[in-house]
């Protein structure tokens, strides 16, 4: 059975939702991992949740990317462990150079909280295998700095290697190529701005976010 770990930084605030989805929807074990820990417990997948780690001081994710826990996380990544960074988690992964690119302020300069439609560009990943290719899904976004940017050559590489995973149907924040989520070169780390952990049951109006967690479990338990 897949075991998840959710990393908690001071200022993380989407940790409760991630833990709730894992425990109550995909019904797997989940451990809380404190940012000052210097090693990881025995887990199969790391979730870096959203929020405002260290109050977004300096730049979103910048200070968290130097927390002690980042060293074992990098090692975990090198060994092929699955990592999902959501919102501030995505920002932390780019600041830690685990994923390429940077996150600029939204083009409106304002915080944007709303439902957005996304296209699943690549369903051949540990995180998206239960979607169909080009499936349109709806998830909430809630961020001020989600305007993804990388140099042209990097964007080309992301495209040719199928590392663009989600794109916005209607670009809300100015991000280049409508990018909403990308994969690392090895295919085991996904960063995304939208929040799948808030979209897991009909009552909430949105439920396809759960498929990301179910895809992870499917990949790890049936491969």
């Amino acid at each position, binding site marked *: 059975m897949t075991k998840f770990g959710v990393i908690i930084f001071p*200022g993380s605030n989407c940790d409760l939702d991630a833990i709730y989805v894992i425990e109550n929807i995909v019904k797997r074990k989940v451990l809380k991992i404190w940012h000052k820990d210097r090693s990881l417990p025995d887990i199969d997948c790391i979730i870096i949740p959203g929020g405002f780690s260290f*109050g977004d001081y300096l730049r979103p994710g910048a200070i968290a990317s130097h927390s002690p826990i980042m060293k074992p996380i990098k090692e975990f990544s090198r060994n092929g462990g699955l990592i999902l960074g959501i919102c501030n988690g995505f920002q932390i992964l780019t600041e830690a150079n685990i994923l390429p690119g940077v996150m600029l302020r939204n083009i409106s300069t304002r915080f944007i909280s709303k439902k957005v439609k996304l296209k699943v560009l690549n369903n051949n990943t540990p995180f998206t295998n239960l979607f169909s290719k080009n499936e349109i899904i709806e998830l*909430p976004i809630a961020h001020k700095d989600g305007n993804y940017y990388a140099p042209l050559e990097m964007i080309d590489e992301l495209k040719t290697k199928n590392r663009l995973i989600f794109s916005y149907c209607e670009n809300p924040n100015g991000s280049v190529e409508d990018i909403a989520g990308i994969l690392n070169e090895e295919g085991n780390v996904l960063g995304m701005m939208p929040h799948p952990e808030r979209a897991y049951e009909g009552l909430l109006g949105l439920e396809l976010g759960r498929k990301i967690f179910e895809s992870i479990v499917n990949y790890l338990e049936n491969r």
Partner: protein
Amino acid sequence: MDEEILKELNFSVKDYEKVVELIGREPSITELGLFSAMWSEHCSYRSSKIYLKELPSSGELVVQGPGENAGIIKITDEIYLAFKVESHNHPSAVEPFQGAATGVGGIIRDIFTMGARPIAILDSLCFGDLNSKRTKYLLNGIVEGISFYGNCVGVPNAGGETHFDPSYSENPLVNVMCVGILNKKNLRKSIAKTSKAKVIYIGAKTGRDGLHGASFASGILDDKAVKRRGSVQVGDPFLEKLLIEATLEIIEEDLIEAIQDMGAAGLTSSSVEMAGKGGKGIKLFLDKVPLRETNMTPLEIMLSESQERMLLVAKIGAEKRIKEILDKWELDYAEIGEITDSNWIEIYFSGEMVCNLPIEYLLNPPLNCIPPQMDRKKLVYVREKTFNLSSLLLEPSFGSKRWIYEQYDTTLLSNTVIPPGNGATLLRIKGTDKFIGLTLNSNGGLCAVNPFLGAQTIVAISSRRISALGVKPAAVTDCLNFGDPNNPQTMWEFSECIKGLSSALKELNIPVVSGNVSFYNEGRDKRINPTPTIGMVGVGNLSYIPSNHFVEVGNLILIIGGETGKEYFDSEILPKLNLELEKNTQELVRELISKGLLKSVQSIDRGGIYLALIRSISLSGIGARIYDFPLNFMPSEFLLSESNSRFLVSIDKDKIDLVAKIVGKEMVKVIGETIANYLIIADSFKVEISEIKNNYERSFRKFLEGA
């Protein structure tokens, strides 16, 4: 005593003489500072106390009524809900971003102080004329401040309201409500019970910011006050987030016996109130208070309103574990004193005693009883009302406030079932089969003309909005915003509003569990409209949740409830209110919802049937055909009627007989049906859905962004 000092402290000569009489000597400067803060209107409710007693405050679900940091009601036997609304008007008038941000921070502290995890924020905002530059400046700053603080601290927004009226041009209103959830065993109060228990200060270091905040809020906004921009505190939502987590961890481990945040009048009110409520005394050593500025005097330390600070009374023996938790969250703390048996507050600084006062004197200022008197000339009548349906659609104040609430995180914590944007919000409570409805409303325009009816109507509308969600109105928190209490006209408005609130709440059986009074809301030559703001919570089990917009073509559209009359909030003929009819209608609608008979439900209130229709259409993309009107009505007169006690619902066609049987024929009027693509109103009006959506959704945004 030097009169300059009294002025600086906003303390009257009369009060000073009373102090001398009470303590039998001249007070020290620090002592005088404590009196000025504790006797300020903001802390002491000295002008409003006698009226507030009229409000009903008990009920089956009430666990904690007024008098604590927040009110508490039962959701289940084990799970409670804490909530409160508070104003941050003056700070927001002089420094909109920080004023609003720290308003959010302050009310959130009131909630987690009780042992509750904050799960929702609502905000009621009143501005001056929409077209003025100052309104745009204030609106941008205030919304950005709420967005900045609320999003970062991790508490989702669950809606609110926005009003525009010239009476608020100098003195805008920012009323913020916070709701939190707690386990019964974690309920904590601000009552110190054990002498020798240690007093622990945690959070931000103390600076000169927010100095005299309580007395700043207890005077009008004149030029001198506006220059007090330095009085406005600066908020740090990240630090507050750490405080939430650390405090809840400390409470979960049962390590403290009392706790209070350092809000208005900072260290003074928190220490005096905790000791006073427990019938104890307190000793403070100010040299131990963590400071961020040098050479601060004892007076400044006691009155600072630096944000993100809490005062705990530790259980004896738990101090070490408390400090471990604070270390984990990297929070500053200091043991600054202890609880005593004396009933006195003793304060030491640099080895000297700088204050030694009986706490009861501080907690019981002489009441300020200005006899209410009505001056008819000061009642405002009739503003111009637009009856043009097409042009209303382009009106920014009529349009959707999406521009505002899209800057607030509304989906965090994954509880949001019906999101903000439609009068009331529905959240589910995880781990239970309960849902809660939340709404925050005022109507200063109506209260200015008829404060009694206005206050009653706000209660009626709030409960109607809660009932439209299918849950039952359970309790209320109120924020009463008025002008200078030394003006008899203000006190007349205040007493009428209280009578209105009280009568409506009693009739509908809804208690008040917490609240706040904000006087002195006046600019240089303008008093605000009397503005009681009501935050209402509803609770219920829901096996079926109706939509808040149309769901399919071919449904009947009905009005359920009272008569539609030529009555409007902005006119000489105000909507009448029959509380019994209101109560019955709401009960019937909740019954229809519980039977699964309603496809969609909307409360009809401000903007009448028309606004309810426009919202239903714009959120769904489904249109409507409205049949003919009663002969004596123009279409717009009918659609814009703001008569009370009505709901707009849509149902399956074959359910009409059943619905009529349940509620009674005289309570149902079929007015139309849902169709595709258009809104068609009798023979007079036909618009495409896309145009409605475009205009309703964009008019406000367009106006603010000028694009």
